[in-house]
């Protein structure tokens, strides 16, 4: 019974199917709003779905030096992001969870980047290695402030369960600071425009994604979309959760719109700028928010 229940959660309702549909919708919103901001019409509603099915049909090309990791990494990263999404949505919708699920959640979100690094590096392409080195630098810059900033809601509520953290959220100066830090870090993790140096299409031709094709590429793109649909939900849950459905949807959409507009008005940062920004501005801010929590 328990197994069937978990399978249902993982594969159907808050897991795979739900996050697939939600991510298609979020990605459509992203592209449509981007198009409208540039005074154009934009793609139809099902465009992300068409892209995904097309990539399923395409041939998978294999680089000469590729090994098993090249094939495994997109599947593993997609599986882990779906697992993260089922943990988060179970907490939000069914108000259930286990002790320590926020830690599991944060670490599950790390797996896609690591898998991308391993898979990209195993292809043995020179330009991909540039993208890989940038991705590693990104990981080094945002991961530490992200974990430090997640400490604030955890300490605030004194619990390691997502749902208890959500129910005990309070708005104070440290939590506003940590919201800001967490927003920037998750934004960098999702790899959209000011922080997309690892896959810069115009300078290193897709970078870390360059050698992936067919279903492998489709799964990587889907992983990114699912992550993008996850990240407003995580923020709303940690900081502005009040149990209501309508207020949740409104806050979710507000953060999503803000992300999309922020993406459209910023140019790409160089990797050195990203590292400086995170190490010298964002990390001290996250430390400050934890210290303030103890002082206030």
């Amino acid at each position, binding site marked *: 019974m328990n197994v069937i229940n978990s399978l249902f959660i993982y594969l159907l309702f808050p897991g795979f199917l739900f996050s697939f549909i939600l991510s298609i919708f979020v990605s459509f919103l992203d*592209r449509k709003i981007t*198009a409208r901001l*540039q*005074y*154009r*019409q*934009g*793609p*139809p509603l*099902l*465009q992300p*779905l*068409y*892209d*995904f*099915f*097309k990539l*399923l*049909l*395409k*041939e*998978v*090309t294999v680089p000469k030096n590729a090994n098993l990791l090249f094939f495994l990494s997109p599947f593993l990263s997609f599986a882990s992001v779906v697992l993260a999404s089922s943990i988060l949505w179970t907490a939000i919708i069914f108000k259930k969870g286990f002790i320590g699920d926020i830690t599991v959640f944060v670490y599950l979100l790390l797996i896609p980047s690591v898998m991308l690094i391993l898979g990209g590096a195993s292809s043995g392409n020179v330009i991909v290695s540039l993208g890989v080195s940038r991705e590693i630098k990104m990981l080094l810059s945002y991961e530490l402030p992200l974990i430090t900033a997640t400490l604030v809601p955890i300490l605030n509520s004194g619990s390691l369960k997502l749902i208890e953290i959500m129910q005990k959220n309070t708005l104070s100066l440290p939590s506003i600071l940590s919201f800001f830090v967490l927003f920037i870090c998750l934004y960098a993790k999702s790899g959209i425009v000011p922080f997309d140096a690892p896959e810069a*299409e*115009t300078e290193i*031709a*897709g970078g870390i*994604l*360059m*050698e*992936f*094709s*067919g279903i492998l*590429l489709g799964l990587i793109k889907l992983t990114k979309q699912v992550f993008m649909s996850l990240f407003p939900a995580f923020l709303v849950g940690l900081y502005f959760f009040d149990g209501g459905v309508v207020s949740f949807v409104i806050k979710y959409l507000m953060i999503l719109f803000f992300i999309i507009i922020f993406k459209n008005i910023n140019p790409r940062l160089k990797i050195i700028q990203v590292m400086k920004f995170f190490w010298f501005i964002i990390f001290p801010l996250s430390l400050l928010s934890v210290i303030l929590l103890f002082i206030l």
Partner: protein
Amino acid sequence: MGLIKKSLLKSLWVFHLPLSPCNNCDIEILDALTPRYDLERFGIQLVGSIRHADVLLVTGVPNYKNYTKLKYLYEQAPKPCFVVAIGTCACGRGVFKDSFNSPCDVDKIVPVSAYVPGCPPKPEAIIDGIVKLIKSLKT
């Protein structure tokens, strides 16, 4: 027409493959992708890597330096992959037909699915070419 085939036609990702053109055709291709013509309405996107491409937009005349590269790049692209020749140069070499350094036409090297003549073709002509390509694939 199955969902898979429909999704292929609805999301053609184009890769820009210049064979030493005079650069006018490339500017017109970029024009066709600007907000004014908005090719993303039909799901057409410019991609940076040959591994992601569905359509190769070939411009310019093949010469002894690059005609082997064209074949090589075509083999690297995941199939199904279509080639569209943009500009008179790529369609039939134009005035460079008897040039000393041009071995043969583009369609002798790779199979070409659509030709867009013009020197350079207008963005409208390029869009027309893509529409004709999609129509020919539907049947």
